[in-house]
């Protein structure tokens, strides 16, 4: 770790968050400039409603990345929880709740397994991804099912003045920030990613820390699945598939690092919105959807490239 240039080094964390925030602001600017009509209660609600599940997917990934792990199974896990919500939770709410709790428990146990047996998280979660998807398909072989009225009712809420997605996004960012960045326990959890030995030397159990973070990740996955079910009013065993990669991208674009426990909930929300709104911006400026993936890849490269330049400057 270079000890020199403390001023620059001190500025880097700020730059890391300022960059995505500026990019997001620019995207909103373009959207509202091209289509001022979207700047309405209805428009914003529609523009951002899918950000609700996506943000929780990214939050789950963030919890795992916080301890230098990677989760290749979060997408199928979200599919599974949305299938549980669409079937069990509708037919037999008690069994559904139990299944969701078991899913969270399974996530925590997976964290425990990784810690105790010192397995590489990337492979364990890869294997788990097949299991989640398999369970989802067994539960719901073809898309269908319904949505519990409570959840469907929630996603259709029209709170006064501010559209629901904004409230949910702001709430997730705020709550995540308070829990992870402001509480003493949050600091300990992030500390594991930064210097696990130091945390252990201060008397904390690393096994418990990892299980807790995986458990929170599982809980975020469940929330994402529930929201997805509410929005779609049905379950689908493949509906969450692309969250696996976009959540990783969102965490990193939002200023997170793969190693070092350097993550931020606010950045993660920002990163998620950037990944999500790329498609809308392209659609509004009438660029063919063929190039959407290219633009997403390009944004990743530009943001991370700029960050690397800032780091080595």
């Amino acid at each position, binding site marked *: 770790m270079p000890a020199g240039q*403390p001023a620059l080094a001190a500025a880097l964390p700020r730059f890391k968050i300022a960059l995505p925030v500026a990019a997001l602001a620019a995207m909103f600017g373009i959207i509202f400039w091209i289509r001022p009509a979207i700047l309405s209660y209805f428009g914003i609600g529609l523009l951002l409603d899918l950000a609700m599940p996506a943000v929780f997917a990214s939050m789950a990934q963030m919890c795992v990345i916080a301890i230098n792990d990677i989760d290749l199974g979060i997408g199928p896990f979200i599919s599974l929880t949305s299938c549980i919500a669409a079937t069990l939770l509708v037919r037999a709410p008690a069994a559904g709740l139990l299944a969701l709790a078991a899913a969270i428990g399974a996530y925590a146990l997976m964290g425990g397994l990784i810690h105790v047996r010192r397995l590489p998280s990337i492979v364990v979660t890869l294997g788990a991804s097949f299991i989640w998807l398999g369970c989802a398909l067994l539960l719901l072989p073809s898309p269908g099912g319904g949505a519990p009225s409570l959840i469907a009712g929630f996603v259709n809420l029209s709170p006064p003045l501010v559209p629901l997605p904004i409230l949910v996004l702001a709430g997730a960012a705020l709550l995540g920030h308070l829990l992870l960045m402001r509480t003493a326990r949050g600091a*300990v959890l992030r500390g594991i990613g930064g210097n696990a030995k130091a945390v252990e030397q201060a008397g904390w159990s690393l096994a418990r820390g990892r299980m807790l973070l995986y458990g929170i990740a599982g809980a975020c996955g469940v929330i994402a699945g529930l929201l997805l079910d509410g929005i779609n009013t049905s379950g689908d065993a493949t509906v969450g598939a692309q969250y696996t990669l976009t959540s990783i991208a969102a965490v990193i674009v939002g200023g997170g690092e793969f190693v*070092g426990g350097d993550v931020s909930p606010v950045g993660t929300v920002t990163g998620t919105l950037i990944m999500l709104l790329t498609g809308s911006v392209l659609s509004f400026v009438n660029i063919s959807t063929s190039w959407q993936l290219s633009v997403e890849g390009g944004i990743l490269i530009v943001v991370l490239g700029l960050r690397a330049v800032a780091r080595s400057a």
Partner: protein
Amino acid sequence: MTAAAAPLIRLAAIARDFGSVRALQGVDLDIDAGRMLGIVGHNGAGKSTLMQIIAGTLPPSSGAIAVAGAPIPAYGVRAAHALGIRCVFQELSLCPNLTVFENVGIMHRSLRGAGWRGRARHLIRASLDAIFPGHGIDPDRQVSSLSIGERQMVEIARAFSETEEKVRLVILDEATASLAGHAATQLLDFTRAARARGIACVFISHRLAEILAYADDIVVLRDGGIVGTAPASGLDEDRLVAMMGEVRAPAGRDAGGARSAGVPRVEAAGQDGESLPLRVHAGEIVGLAGLAGHGQRAFLHRVFAAARHRERGLAVNGSIAHVSGDRASEGIFPLWSVMRNISAGALGRLSRFGLIDPAAERALAEAWARSLAIRTPTVSHLATRLSGGNQQKVLVARALASGADILLLDDPTRGVDVGTKRELYARMRAHAAGGHAILWYTTENAELAECDRVYVFSRGRITDAIDRDAYSEDRVIRASFASAPPGGGFARAG
């Protein structure tokens, strides 16, 4: 507290093994409240291991620990912490991704709930102010943005900070190594005040003057055992050095002979009045001396890099091989056999039509294993299964087998027993005599006697160049604390 009362901490017959390495062999030690115990000893003597056992972060293999006269059966971090035992570990143990005050929160479990951030900030600021007046460290800074010295200050201040749990013992394991001179003085002066309040201190340092000036008692550790205990008042630097090291007469060797003039293998320009120039010729063994972390290792890396790319002020002529004493992180390939570890540097010569010849590879490895007397059942044995000293020999064999013109040795005898060391010295001499140039950084002053010339580093600069005839350990120690070469105003650091 009278002398008759039980000591704050009593260690009885503490031993600790790391695999086949015996780091501590039955240490008995008392630590008294209100006094500072200084511990000195060569690298790898077992100082840090002992401290980790006291701090509860490492269980002893055997032995007993009693605090204030009461034996503690389930001794561990939590127990130690509850008893008011704090340790500033040798390697930094702050989380770089957290702020200063968050790191304080990690140590004090009682800092939680509403307002913990404010309390943590206040706590660390107060402690920093008390120990290092004028420190200029903002508790809201992220640790990764602090300099090494500042991080060290934070860690020290954190160890002395008190919540409801009172501090009874603070261990400072080479805590002054990365502190600027006046910060070190501030710290040591502060410990006087702390001792007056009944807090015990354990202070480990390679700066003997500090230990002598501030410690109440001094313990000397060698090869995992205590070889001497004395009140500091009765000791001086010479006697302490004598207790620490085996004072060995330099082994006889014929001066010169292979030593050649001509184009130097390595040549580093000096800086006027700041740093002396350095030169290594074929056939020479050149030592790099000074306190650990004063630029010797960085210099070796610069030389290594200069063999491939251009470097300003550094000329390297010839191929280069590197041997590190830090086997685990920059030497041994853990998945490879002894054979492959040895042959790694010589693959070019072992290849026929682009393919490595297995018979030739085996022959090479076996020849070197025999020549260096590496103790291994076969050369197909996993290198990590060997003892530390034999692993080190594997690395030396790799470098020698590569046939490089220049050999860089980075403290290559760390954790190596005396017999092996002697073998290696002889091997180096023979290698140099064979027309190779050797650049050797060591933290053991006794090894410097093996060199044709010694350059002493202090704060990244070369402050003295001592020829073999003029060599004395005293001169090395003096130059180690100098801030500039003799010509440019020689000053003794304190």
